[in-house]
């Protein structure tokens, strides 16, 4: 009998491979906060088996369970059976949308991107005081969070690029729309084409982005295959920055949070550390770092759909940073900066920055 849902066709064997060991519970940010088994990978696999066996329906009653996952992939990293939970969740969400069942925030996101250029439906682009769409060696692609939620951080990054005399241009960018793949939909072809056209028109050889999610989308989504086909390199800013000798130093105690989209999803762990350790002699790792880093709670659309829990997850991560004695928490993702900053309590005297923003701060002070 033909499987009813694509997740069954593609991932039945993986779902059955789940041995219910619960190793994923130890590392799941949503379970760590809520202690609800259904919100953890193990619970989700149990539920999906019930759906596969026709015992329960895939419907609105499962929205909270199946849409409340940051897709941080910590479960996959720790799964002895290699069950690719993030991919399964992505497909399940697409199946649910296919039958008309979707979290309203995610449906809203998809609708917004049909008529706006960014996920926040902001009509006015932030003015960073720099020319856009000019000929340059590199395009700096900001991303929606950097443009509309962490503009100060983005401005600091641009100031640093100016200081380093990087030949770059901004473009009239639109949302990479990669997030739609995580929340039940597809990358928006119209937006992808627009970004590709704008980049090609600059004649640039390289796209540099501060957003790990945009980086992932540009390098992994087939809608952006044109970049590779046209010989355009896509770099995360941490990969670009490590080429430079950064002269400023700090003796403040610094720690680093690995963004899930940069770390577990793209394997970039060392480059940010190479730059940070050049400037910060007093660098300390959190106990959960690199592939074991605890997710900040913002990813997979969770910050949009389950904002309270998202911030509560970030609060747990900040505490881990504070517990190291660090005065500064660096990360390479504006979405992480945003969520962690929202979560920081007044009594927690820890500065939260992207590495580039922090370097710019040191240069300003120097």
């Amino acid at each position, binding site marked *: 009998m033909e499987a009813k849902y694509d997740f069954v066709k593609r991932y039945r064997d993986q779902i059955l491979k789940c041995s219910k060991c619960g190793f994923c519970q130890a590392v799941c940010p949503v379970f760590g906060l809520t202690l609800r088994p259904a919100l953890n990978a193990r619970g989700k696999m149990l539920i999906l088996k019930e759906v596969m066996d026709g015992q329960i329906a895939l419907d609105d009653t499962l929205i909270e369970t199946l849409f409340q996952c940051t897709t941080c992939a910590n479960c996959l990293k720790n799964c002895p059976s290699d069950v690719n939970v993030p991919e399964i969740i992505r497909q399940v969400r697409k199946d649910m949308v296919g039958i008309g069942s979707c979290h309203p*925030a995610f449906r809203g996101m998809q609708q917004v991107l049909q008529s706006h250029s960014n996920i*926040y439906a902001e009509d006015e682009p932030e003015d960073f005081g720099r020319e856009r769409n000019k000929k340059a060696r590199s395009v700096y692609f900001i991303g929606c969070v950097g443009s*509309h939620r962490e503009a100060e951080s983005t401005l600091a990054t641009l100031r640093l690029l100016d200081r380093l005399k990087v030949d770059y241009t901004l473009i009239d960018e639109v949302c990479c729309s990669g997030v739609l793949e995580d929340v039940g939909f597809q990358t928006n072809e119209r937006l992808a084409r627009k970004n590709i056209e704008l980049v090609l028109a600059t004649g640039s050889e390289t796209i540099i982005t501060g957003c790990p999610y945009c980086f992932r989308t540009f390098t992994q989504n087939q809608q952006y295959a044109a970049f590779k086909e046209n010989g355009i390199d896509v770099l995360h800013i941490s990969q670009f920055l490590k080429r430079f000798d950064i002269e400023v130093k700090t003796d403040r105690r610094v720690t680093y949070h690995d963004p899930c989209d940069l770390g577990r999803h793209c394997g970039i762990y060392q480059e940010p550390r190479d730059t940070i350790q050049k400037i910060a002699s007093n660098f300390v790792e959190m106990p959960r770092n690199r592939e074991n880093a605890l997710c900040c709670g913002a990813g997979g659309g969770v910050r*949009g759909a389950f*904002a309270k829990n998202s*911030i509560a997850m970030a609060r747990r991560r900040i505490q881990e940073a504070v517990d190291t004695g660090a005065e500064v928490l660096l990360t390479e993702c504006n979405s992480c900066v945003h969520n962690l900053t929202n979560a920081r309590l*007044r009594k927690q005297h820890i500065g939260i920055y992207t590495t580039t923003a922090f370097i710019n701060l040191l240069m300003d002070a120097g």
Partner: protein
Amino acid sequence: MEIEGYNMPEDLYYEGNHFWVRDEGDVLVMGMDDFARKLAGEIVYVQLPEEGKMIETGKKFAKMESGKWLGKVFGPVSGELVEVNEALEENPGLINEDCYGKGWMYKIKPRDKSELEKLIHTAEDIQKWLLADIEKYAKEK
């Protein structure tokens, strides 16, 4: 005073971006009004600047967020931020529960209290202003 389902106390002063101000003598208390909190949805974050921060009329001094919206908080008058509602740090939803009471946001020591007169104040003016904004936001939807 209720206007089309929105509770807008007429003894308060209102800044045009839908923040109310209550005169408590030496200090002005500020918060978000019923119209704005309903439009914003569940508030998940309120920025609480350090006490002592100088506030300027019409200039942004803080921000707040709901799941879908980022709002800027502008100074209704010039003065000094003397107190913030720390309960909002872990429970920003107090604004949704009780925007005129437990959900107050900031206390400002004004430089010149006469600036209050520039805010929207009488029942008639409040009604006129709110009805216009109800229509404006309905069109934008």
